């Protein structure tokens, strides 16, 4: 794996052509910009974020108030994506509902990263007994297959939006710990770490200031892709009735409601799911683009 300083060196070694030398960051940005799919995906993500933030302005109808005159209407000019079982506009519900879906995903990643990063650092940096204890704990968490870890946490905390977010976050901690641990385990042997230690830099400072920038690339890629997983797990919990509760709009909850009408109203299950797909697809493309840009050797793997 090319570490940040190696790529940085490679960039500075490129022959001078009169132009200013590019920093590692500029080089990465340039490589990312060359990946058309990733750039388009990033633009889509920004647009979606704006649409969700501006839901109040963009949503043509109230996402909550029933409209008995327009129950289960197929998509039409008045209701572009149709209406649900009690006449609520699906487009409006998707715009408002996405806020919760996405915020749950982002907060869950913040929890997973916020807890996983320091734990992984400590395990990888110190090794030995500390590492063995942490690794065993992660093994135990990973023994709860798939969504079952999140389900168990919800079972203990009770079903609510906040608890579902915490549950999703906890279930993604082991992934972060493993990745960060592995990176620190291999990076701490570098000469610059010894050098820092020799001049009396403290452990925490070495971990954060010296090593972290060099292992940030894979962590950023994981965070991007894992945001997608978090959104899917969060929406799954809501779909099962264990997260966001009706009548609050949320993509998973809306899909669960649409499930009851699947034989008569296809639009109720199609559009909220399509919204999830677009977000996850964009996140995955950006993640792929980031990975290629940060570590060109991994391209086409």
């Amino acid at each position, binding site marked *: 794996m090319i570490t940040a300083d190696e790529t940085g060196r490679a960039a500075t070694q490129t022959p001078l052509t009169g132009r200013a030398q590019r920093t590692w960051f500029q080089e990465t940005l340039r490589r990312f910009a060359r990946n058309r799919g990733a750039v388009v995906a990033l633009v889509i993500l920004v647009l979606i974020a704006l649409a969700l933030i501006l839901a109040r302005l963009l949503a043509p109808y109230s996402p909550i108030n029933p409209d008995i005159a327009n129950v289960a209407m197929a998509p039409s000019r008045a209701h572009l994506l149709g209406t649900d079982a009690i006449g609520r506009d699906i487009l409006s519900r998707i715009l408002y509902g996405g806020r919760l879906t996405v915020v749950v995903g982002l907060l869950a990643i913040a929890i997973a990263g916020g807890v996983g990063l320091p734990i992984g650092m400590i395990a990888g940096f110190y090794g030995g007994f500390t590492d063995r204890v942490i690794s065993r704990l992660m*093994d135990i968490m990973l023994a709860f297959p*798939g969504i*079952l870890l999140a389900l168990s946490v919800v079972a203990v905390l009770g*079903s609510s939006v906040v608890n579902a977010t915490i549950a999703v976050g906890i279930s993604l901690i082991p992934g972060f710990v493993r990745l960060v641990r592995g990176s620190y385990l291999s990076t701490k042997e570098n000469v610059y770490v010894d050098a820092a230690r020799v001049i009396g830099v403290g452990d925490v400072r070495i971990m954060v200031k010296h090593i972290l920038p060099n292992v940030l690339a894979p962590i950023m890629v994981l965070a991007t892709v894992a945001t997608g997983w978090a959104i*899917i797990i969060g929406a799954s919990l809501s*779909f*099962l009735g264990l997260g966001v509760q009706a009548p609050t709009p949320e993509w998973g909850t809306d*899909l669960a409601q649409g499930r009851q009408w699947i034989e008569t109203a296809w639009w109720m299950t199609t559009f909220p799911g399509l919204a999830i797909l677009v977000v*996850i697809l964009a996140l995955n493309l950006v993640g792929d683009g980031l990975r290629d840009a940060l570590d060109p050797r991994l391209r086409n793997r």
Partner: protein
Amino acid sequence: MLRFLVARLISAIPVLVGVSIAVFLMIHLLPGDPATIMLQGAPASAQDIQNLRHQLGLDEPLYTQYFRWLDRVVHGDFGVSIHTRRPVLTEITTVFPSTLQLAMAAMVVALGMGITLGILAALHQNTWIDTLSMGIALFGVSMPDFWVGLLLILVFAVYFHWFPVAGIGGLNYLVLPAVALGANFSAITARLVRSNMLEVLRQEYVLTARAKGLTQWRVVVIHTLRNALIPVVTIVGLQFGNLLGGAVVIETVFARQGLGQLAVTAILGKDFPLIQGIVLVAAIVYVFVNIFVDLLYTLLDPRIRPESLA
């Protein structure tokens, strides 16, 4: 091989003990007194609660409670479901075969589709076939499995009437849930097989096989595929866990009786003995499947010495 198996089994013990402690603690981490939770708001006097606490052993130290509980669990006694009053183990063994059937079918679908797509993409690298296969795979990893299920119902059950919308029964009822559950894994497999195939196709022995004038079919199936598939085996164990977990959502989508649906009902009804039982059983199954997969791995790839895995 036997030594490896024993070592691998021994290494699983701390994990299983940890899982059992976590599952045991579930009910004690809950806000409020477990006895009150068990009563589910039923009218009870202070004396009733006291009696129940004693009956459940809640008035004893935590570690005593744990060892008692563990002793019962090891002997197959997971307690009784709060709602149905039937033994938890009976509840689980009644529905487990249907979940296992679903997970296995999904595995077959995933490996079948994934390996086919992966081979096609690798053999036609940088052509439209490659782009299309990897495009399908990208959608596969980006779609929530429950939405795949809903779309399959819309298209193949509601519109074409080829399969039933929901329920449980013969093979007919298994196809859509299996595809929905396996979609994600098949996409992961396709990507993995493609990159492995590309790597193996560059090996000199493949060139030799080609130079001997072997047909493309023989080169791919006899010389390349076997080695390209070895890494796939490693993720099968991990993915089996995801399939088991994914069954929770897929069973709800297709209204299939199973471990997943049982889990959701148990959580919604705060049926803690049942939740504990399901989580414990799922974790144990998962741990043992992974041991089995590791074993398979060493058989497939003689370069891997069993000791290094243990």
